[in-house]
């Protein structure tokens, strides 16, 4: 394995594939098959990463490093730990399903759509594999471009507003991050994350850097109160765009907190952890109530994403509090693992929810809840899947949605039972908005005559929803392989948190 640059292959295979798809994909069928082939190959290529990663040893593996911009001492540096492996496999898995899912609904400029998806996949893998901050930043910004195109070209009627909002919002955040990175470069003379983490920084420096990172990543996650771009982006995005956005792009924010904020500014992170924790708790309650009153399915699920991602930020920063203030590294590991499991699970669950909405949208071309009703009568299989994913969204044990939230709540309780109390409110409000959606869309008599003509899932939709369902159940019934994969990496991060830099 050592001589085979697996990570580079994973990044560039879909991007080169995208070029091929553009070149050869005049015929929509060719474009579809070719892009599926590329995505499948990438997925298969990501399996050796999972199998070959030595979880017990932990640390960074599969490293590659080449000087990239000599003057800046910027490297093309790639390596992965357990956390990155999990996120990369999530990316390659979801990408395959997104490409299959887009076969039917996307009819214009097929090759370009597929190419954009593949480029996006490559960029995302790059983000999760980069060990050099500049390289990370390049991927981080570059991934906006294919997403911008996907929403802007194949999106809904208000796509221009949505894309601008999406782009400006996220770009604004990353500017602050860029300033932070430039400062760190001036300080250390290089761009490697390891050097950044090792650099001694005063409390004031850390505070400025922390808020620089916070601006970049909080918008990405997105955290309350900078979440308002997400519902608009989702509503206008085509199904595939929404799935990728929810399942993977949001994870970049959480990943950023773990890779940048915690190791580079641990003391400031501790000092301002309460800010992030408070924002997360507000998100759970506030966003829960906002989700309850949405008339648009996609907006509802988008808001529910914000509420669920709050468990990621809560888990990350509660573990900091646990390490620093309660000297309880065990619970800290639980919180951090919970955050990570929640990221992976949310990838499956929200991806599946958006895929389900896409299935409905393809039939009726509306996302308005009150146009539906009684779908169970005409699409029993779909109804079954929808209920399963809804239950995962409510965090029912036995589905993946439970695992992360359970761990984060257990860990939060050890820091402060009142934090756990507010977080656990998701059990009630999450069930309320999700089941009310199910009641109005799936159950009841068919009232809309167009719904009465619905056909149940076709084979292609079956594959997509069935794969998501398998993942949701597998992770819910037996999460140990995932937690084992990430365990030593999480331990390293938690151990690093104990060291002060100031």
């Amino acid at each position: 394995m050592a001589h085979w640059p697996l990570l580079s292959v994973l990044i560039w295979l879909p991007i080169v594939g995208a070029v091929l798809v553009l070149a050869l994909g005049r015929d929509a069928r060719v474009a579809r098959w070719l892009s599926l082939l590329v995505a499948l190959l990438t997925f298969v290529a990501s399996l050796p990463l999972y199998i070959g990663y030595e979880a017990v040893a932990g640390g960074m593996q599969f490293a590659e490093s080449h000087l990239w911009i000599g003057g800046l001492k910027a490297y093309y540096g790639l390596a992965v730990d357990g956390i990155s492996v999990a996120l990369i496999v999530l990316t390659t898995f979801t990408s395959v399903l997104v490409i299959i899912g887009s076969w039917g609904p996307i009819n214009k400029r097929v090759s370009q759509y597929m190419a954009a998806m593949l480029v996006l996949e490559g960029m995302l893998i790059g983000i999760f594999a980069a060990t050099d901050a500049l390289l990370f930043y390049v991927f981080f910004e570059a991934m906006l471009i294919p997403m911008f195109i996907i929403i802007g070209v194949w999106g809904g009627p208000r796509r221009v507003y949505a894309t601008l909002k999406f782009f400006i919002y996220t770009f604004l955040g990353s500017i602050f991050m860029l300033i932070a990175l430039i400062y760190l470069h001036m300080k250390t003379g290089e761009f490697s994350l390891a050097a950044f983490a090792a650099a001694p920084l005063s409390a004031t420096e850390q505070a400025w850097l922390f808020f620089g990172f916070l601006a970049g990543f909080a918008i990405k996650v997105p955290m309350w109160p900078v979440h308002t771009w997400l519902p608009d982006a989702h509503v206008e995005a085509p199904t595939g765009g929404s799935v990728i956005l929810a399942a993977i792009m949001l994870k970049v924010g959480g990943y950023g907190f773990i890779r940048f904020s915690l190791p580079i500014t641990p003391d400031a992170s501790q000092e301002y952890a309460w800010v992030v924790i408070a924002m997360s708790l507000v998100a759970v309650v506030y966003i829960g109530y906002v989700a309850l009153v949405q008339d648009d399915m996609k907006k509802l699920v988008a808001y529910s994403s914000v509420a669920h991602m709050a468990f990621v930020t809560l888990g990350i920063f509660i573990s900091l509090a646990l390490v620093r203030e309660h000297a309880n590294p065990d619970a800290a590991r639980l919180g951090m693992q919970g955050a990570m499991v929640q990221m992976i699970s949310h990838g499956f669950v929200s991806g599946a929810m958006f895929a389900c909405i896409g299935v409905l949208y393809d039939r009726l071309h509306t996302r308005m809840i009150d146009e539906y009703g009684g779908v169970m009568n005409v699409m029993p299989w779909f109804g079954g899947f929808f209920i399963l994913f809804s239950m995962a969204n409510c965090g029912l044990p036995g589905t993946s949605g439970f695992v992360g939230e359970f761990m984060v709540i257990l860990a939060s309780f050890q820091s402060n039972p009142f934090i756990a109390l507010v977080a656990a409110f998701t059990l009630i409000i999450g069930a309320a908005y999700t089941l009310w959606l199910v009641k109005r869309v799936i159950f009841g008599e068919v009232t809309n005559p167009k719904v009465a003509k619905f056909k149940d899932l076709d084979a292609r939709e079956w594959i997509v929803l069935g794969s998501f369902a398998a993942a949701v159940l597998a992770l819910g019934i037996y999460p140990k392989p995932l937690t084992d994969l990430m365990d030593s990496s999480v331990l390293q991060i938690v151990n690093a948190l104990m060291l002060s830099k100031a």
Partner: protein
Amino acid sequence: MMLDKSILLTIVLAPLFGALVAGLFGKRIGRVASHSVTIAGVALSCVLSILVLYKLVWGGAEVFNQNIYTWFEVGSTSAHVGFLIDRLTAMMMVVVTFVSLMVHVYTIGYMAEDDGYERFFSYIALFTFSMLMLVMSNNFLQLFFGWEAVGLVSYLLIGFWYKRPTAIFANMKAFIVNRVGDFGFLLGIAGVLLWFGGSLDYAAVFAHAQDPSLDMASRSVELIAGHPWQVATIVCICLFIGAMGKSAQVPLHVWLPDSMEGPTPISALIHAATMVTAGIFMVARMSPLFELSETALTFVLVIGATTALFTGLIGVVQNDIKRVVAYSTLSQLGYMTVALGVSAYSAGVFHLMTHAFFKALLFLGAGSVIIAMHHEQDMRHMGGLRKYMPITWITMWIGSLALAGAPGFAGFFSKDAIIEAVGESHRLGAGYAYFCVLAGVFITALYSFRLLYMTFHGKQRFVVDPVKHHHGHEDPEHHAPGHLAHAPHESPWVVTVPLVLLAIPSIVIGFLTIGPMLFGDYFGNAIFVREANNVIGELGHGFHGALAMILHGFSQPPFWIALAGFIVATWIWLFNPRIADKAENALRPLHAVLANKYWFDNLYQAVFARGGIRFGRGLWRGSDATLIDGAINGSASLVDQVSALLRRLQSGYLYHYAFAMILGLILLLGGSWWVLTRIAA
């Protein structure tokens, strides 16, 4: 001797297998195959559960406590899937699988004309799996899994007829109200992990709780500075909030009456015999924790007593046959909870068991009546059914006698034990509880016999006119109330056989088991009671066998109170039905209170449902759209305005640019000169 792990796995997995086959392939393999595979699975579980019970009680098998697999392991925190099989568990397994088997068989008849036949079998088998996971668990994680899984199946089954607006409202309500309980339950589990030794396994937690050197009873924590709270109290009240949701205790009881929207077999299985008793089972299982906190037990006691009396009262004014039984279930769950509250856990569990048999019987009997009446559930349109359906009639009498606590019947033993235990207890609130449970005896007799008289006795209050109606079982609105297409008749054998098989234990099970279960060593270490709280032990001194207890029963207040209830009910509903209407008029305010169920539903609907929606709208429109997006769009338009100003500079006239350049140059040079002179000075 050890129990065989593979037997235990088979007990759990056989119903799951049946559920998956019937659920995924039901339409393809057909009705007979679907019900065969699920019934075979549950029957296998039932037989093996009886075998396990036999081995534990008579075969000298040791308590089984093993993990099956590790769910996750992070640092010192680990979660497993595993089984703890002691006599408490074994009893629950037998009750669950036996009642489930009866309900499976009964369903063949009850759902015969329903399109969702296969789906129904899949759900009830899945329920059996979930409930077994719950009772067989050896740790809090799996307990919570089973807890939520039975909630899910309950949700699916209440909404089984998903076209009915009332059904899909009821199932959503049930799930959300249960989630309120689970919210407390989850926090309780988190508290257990934090304060009781960092483990989720029962054995380790209980060992920690009972370790005298740790003295957990006096351990307290200041969650709010200056207010030390006993940790056991916090944990137990949180856990009990979970039980209040699942076992429908006031004020979280509101979902259970509405759950009657589901088909009757599941009302019997889930909402009477098994799932709703999960809370009782859980508290009994956690007795080593609850014993630490006097405060928590008082809380349990008061909630239980309130539920026992006040929900029973509502039952007296209901006209829907299933709702009467439902309110009776609420009231009986209150009795069980009262028993837990006075540390008489074994009495609570004992009542759980007897109740499972006679209440399942009553529900299935009610279902049999409903089939005969072509899905008419209003007792005002029944009457005189005894001559049409003798088996249902007699078994319903047996069930009602057991429920009312007629001496010798199963319910007599368990309810009397609870009442006496409350009388024996000195716990704060025991006086109030004693009043509630005694008054409840009168109420129980009143609604039980009212149901029997209105349904089976007296004048026939329906008309049989075959010409006018086609009959469609699916749709109750289809019929004019009180009109039947053809005369009611006794249900088929798949319905009556389960009735008979449940009637037998409803008569004898109390007599046979009270000795060992309450006053013997049946539960062993499964239930822990501190010596000072041991009211059952006190009662045991006066216990001289079941027969003596029956004879003794005739001289006790509960018997006379129940008899009074029976006489009043007979006098009114058998002989003078007019009096009921007169009483209703005379006591109009009281009737309004009961008919409106103390306005709990209205209150919750107004505050939590409508209030929540209003709150959400306010946040969305007020905060998200106006404040946050206002700021974002505002800053965007600010940029727009600034750039509009800047754009004016780019006028395109050369002399403007030239002027600007000269101005800039002057400023730059002047500024530099100014700065440099300062530095030089």
